[in-house]
């Protein structure tokens, strides 16, 4: 994965960048499988590697396929992202160990979710659709809003387009 990111950062050809980010998404999906988060892995593979690659290719079709030379040196953004990375890693050091049963997150509501009083074998679905139904309703509304925004931005009236062409 690190290698993919390194090549990604160095590539100037945008077509290569799109393909590489698709590869990155697939690698990310395998990481998710390794973490036993198969639901997330499926989403990552379908959205990250599949649909968004197609959308990026569509966008690429509309513009040049070579990245323009940056107008100024990237030192300030680089320093900023390095600082954020250091801060995040420092924060992650304070987290409990991976899969530690004594971690606070396993003491609070997780036992109740896992008791599974509603008899749905897939705990992810149970939490997503039942215990946190309001959250998921909000998420669905966000997705809907994204679609509505795309329609509002990109739809062109046929009459107007005819006028532009003349």
């Amino acid at each position, binding site marked *: 994965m690190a290698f993919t990111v390194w090549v990604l950062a160095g590539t100037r050809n945008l077509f290569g960048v799109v393909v590489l980010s698709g590869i990155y998404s697939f690698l990310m999906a395998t990481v998710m499988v390794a973490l036993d988060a*198969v*639901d997330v892995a*499926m*989403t990552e593979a*379908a*959205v990250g590697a*599949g*649909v968004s690659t*197609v*959308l990026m290719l*569509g*966008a690429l*079709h*509309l513009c040049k396929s070579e990245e323009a030379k940056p107008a100024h040196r990237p030192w300030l953004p680089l320093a900023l992202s390095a600082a954020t990375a250091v801060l995040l890693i420092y924060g992650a050091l304070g987290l409990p160990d991976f899969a530690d049963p004594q971690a606070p997150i396993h003491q609070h509501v997780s036992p109740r979710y896992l008791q599974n009083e*509603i*008899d*749905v*074998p*897939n705990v*992810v*679905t*149970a939490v*997503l*659709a*039942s215990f946190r*139904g*309001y959250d*998921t*309703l909000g*998420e*669905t*509304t966000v*997705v*809907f809003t*994204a*679609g*509505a925004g*795309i*329609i509002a931005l*990109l*739809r*062109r009236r046929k009459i107007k*387009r005819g006028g532009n*062409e003349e």
Partner: protein
Amino acid sequence: MKNDLVLRVIGKLLIPFILLFALYVQFHGDFGPGGGFQAGTIFAAGIVFYALIFGLENARKVIPDRLVEAMLAAGVLLYAGVGVAGLLLGGNYLDYFALDADPIHGQHRGIFWVEAGVAVTVCGVMLKIFYMFASRGEDGRGEA
């Protein structure tokens, strides 16, 4: 890509299974991994694959724009409607226990419809975005 024989044959072979797998992920979401979000994206990916191979116009014949736009709203309405149904049957909003005499069965029923709503909206949005971008590309080619 329309005239590539290999792609056409493989696409015809694979697309039914992609769509079937999406439905499996949808309806088996209670028992195995998966659910509305995953099923919606996989279904949309199948249609996008079809559009890539056979052209946007043919995909629009399969799933017309009006249907896609209706799907956007229908999913959210279905989800919210489950909540209202819970209200009408004497529970709280989005309270699935009220949906059936047997509470556990009610939960299953609620989750089923909610997941269906999520899948419909996600699939609709994915397809809409793809249609929008792809048709812009065609316009650009026409003008250039």
